[in-house]
């Protein structure tokens, strides 16, 4: 009893410490004043309204959506095939390769970013959205692999064999059986990898050149105190979008493991 109470208190403070600052963001985005401090002067939607008329912001948003969509598709496609191989086959170097794929999760972002910058420039690829897409694909791959692996874990191999047995070619089997069955996993992976890319700052900052993504744009605006409430509003919207995407992704991931009873 006592231990449980202690744990509860701990969890309460822990979560408060983690999420309270995040909650200030939306709170002050409705504040009718440019100074971020209590007491709140009044409530307004003005800062949100102003967002729509800022062309550079819209351009950054479009950039982010583009980068997010392309790197989500690339990393999910790669994750799909990698996960299928990891779950189905035993091969030389499997353990090492599985470890390497997960590496971006632990390597400091600044290291990845600076080495990619050096690499891309030495290959003649100038900082651009293409460079960001490549970087984000690399960064999102561990998420895609992990999600697709859990989709394939529940997948009975004899389903693919049954399709072959009934006359399908390998490709048809993939299209008519494998893909539909792991589809919820694919959707979940697309959403998660998109979110990873959409929120990412360090790589985008190094690699985007003069085509900023949304987080890079926000960073550039934070220096102007007058624009701060706008930035808060934008940040709140981003937060909302990320949470929504992740919740939907989790819904699909669960559905993928349930549909295979």
């Amino acid at each position: 009893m006592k231990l449980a109470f202690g744990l509860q208190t701990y969890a309460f403070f822990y979560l408060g410490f983690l999420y309270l600052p995040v909650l200030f963001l939306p709170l002050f985005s409705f504040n009718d004043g440019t100074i971020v401090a209590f007491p709140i002067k009044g409530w307004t939607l003005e800062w949100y309204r102003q967002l729509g008329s800022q062309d550079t912001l819209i351009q950054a948003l479009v950039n982010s959506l583009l980068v997010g969509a392309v790197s989500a598709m690339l990393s999910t496609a790669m994750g799909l095939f990698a996960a299928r191989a990891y779950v189905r086959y035993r091969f030389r170097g499997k353990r090492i390769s599985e470890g390497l794929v997960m590496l971006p999760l632990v390597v400091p972002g600044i290291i990845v970013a600076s080495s990619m910058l050096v690499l891309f420039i030495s290959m003649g690829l100038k900082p651009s959205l293409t460079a960001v897409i490549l970087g984000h694909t690399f960064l999102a791959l561990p998420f895609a692999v992990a999600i697709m692996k859990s989709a394939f874990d529940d997948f009975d191999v004899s389903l693919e064999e049954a399709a072959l047995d009934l006359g399908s070619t390998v490709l048809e089997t993939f299209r008519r059986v494998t893909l539909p069955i792991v589809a919820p996993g694919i959707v979940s992976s697309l959403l998660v990898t998109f979110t990873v890319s959409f929120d990412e700052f360090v790589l985008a900052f190094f690699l985007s050149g003069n085509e900023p993504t949304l987080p890079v744009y926000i960073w550039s605006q934070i220096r102007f105190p007058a624009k701060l409430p706008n930035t808060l509003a934008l940040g709140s919207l981003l937060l909302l979008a990320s949470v929504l995407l992740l919740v939907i992704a989790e819904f699909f991931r669960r559905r993928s493991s349930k549909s295979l009873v």
Partner: protein
Amino acid sequence: MTETNIIEMTGVEKRFGTFTAVSDLSLSLREGEFFSLLGPSGCGKTTALRMIAGFQEPTDGRVTIDGQDMQGIAANKRPTNMVFQSYAIFPHLDVGDNVAYGLRNRGLKKAEIENRVSEALEMVELGGLQRRRANELSGGQRQRVALARALVMRPKVLLLDEPLSALDKKLREQMQFEMRRLQRNLGITFVMVTHDQYEAMTMSDRIGVMFDGKLVQVDSPETLYAKPCNREVASFIGEMNFLPAQVSARQENSLTVTTTCFENLKIETNPNVRQGYGDILVGIRPEQIEIAAKQPDGYDATFRGDVVNVAFYGENVHYHVRVEGLDRPVSASVPNYFHMVDFREGDSVWLGVQSASVIDLGENEPS
């Protein structure tokens, strides 16, 4: 039943790394027969079946189906279809689409596909369930869908991997009869893998018994039961009392043997065992041993013992009888004619056997 062979396996071997799962398997399957591969789990039955289906290439040897060498021919090009142990019902398709799956690969007309699907579903008594979702099916229904999905392809050979092992006992017995009836009506060759000897015996025309990757004996259920080729087969199929025996005389078709229980009994030689020169092992089925309070008349051999255990099975009663000089009690099983258990633990009894019931199991190798 015609005498053409639909499947020929010659010297087939399958190795996984250094482990040999199937070794030197040679087998001819006749067109239209119900054949079972029977053996304990892990003995290589599924691997053998998968080499026929084309999911695994033999490391060595040859598989021909309907006269055609299957080397290098993929599963989707073989005239076989398979019912998987897990049934492998496509979870994203309903029953109708599951059964139609293979027909769509053949590019048949829509109307014909629909006809054949409903025909196949009628056949397995799931008529009208086309739009039922895969996750709404019971175990028995999944099994029937898997059967219909394979049979609708009209394969030359239907392969079944432990098709009934996931069902409960009552349903399993019912399906045994139904599958047997289906096979008879369709005349398609069935090759079934099972570890259940009763399943194999009730359904099959012939049974191949496998141990440790080797095919040990191929025979009809009756022959397997009456003339097993060695101790392993004899104890895997049904129950058997084993007695070491000295051979005092060998004639062309008979042996004169002496055991702890009887002396100089003339028994038939078993054509399925290799004849040697030393002592042999003989076997007696429990239901062929008479048990009585007084020395029974009309038996070729009688001997005494004490009941040490009584097991009541309902349809029959098993008595375990300790006989002087034997390590293990002799098991005798008696049909339950009058709802009476005649003997109790500790009773002194007489046992009787006919010489025809004493099975020659060949040289007595230490096991």
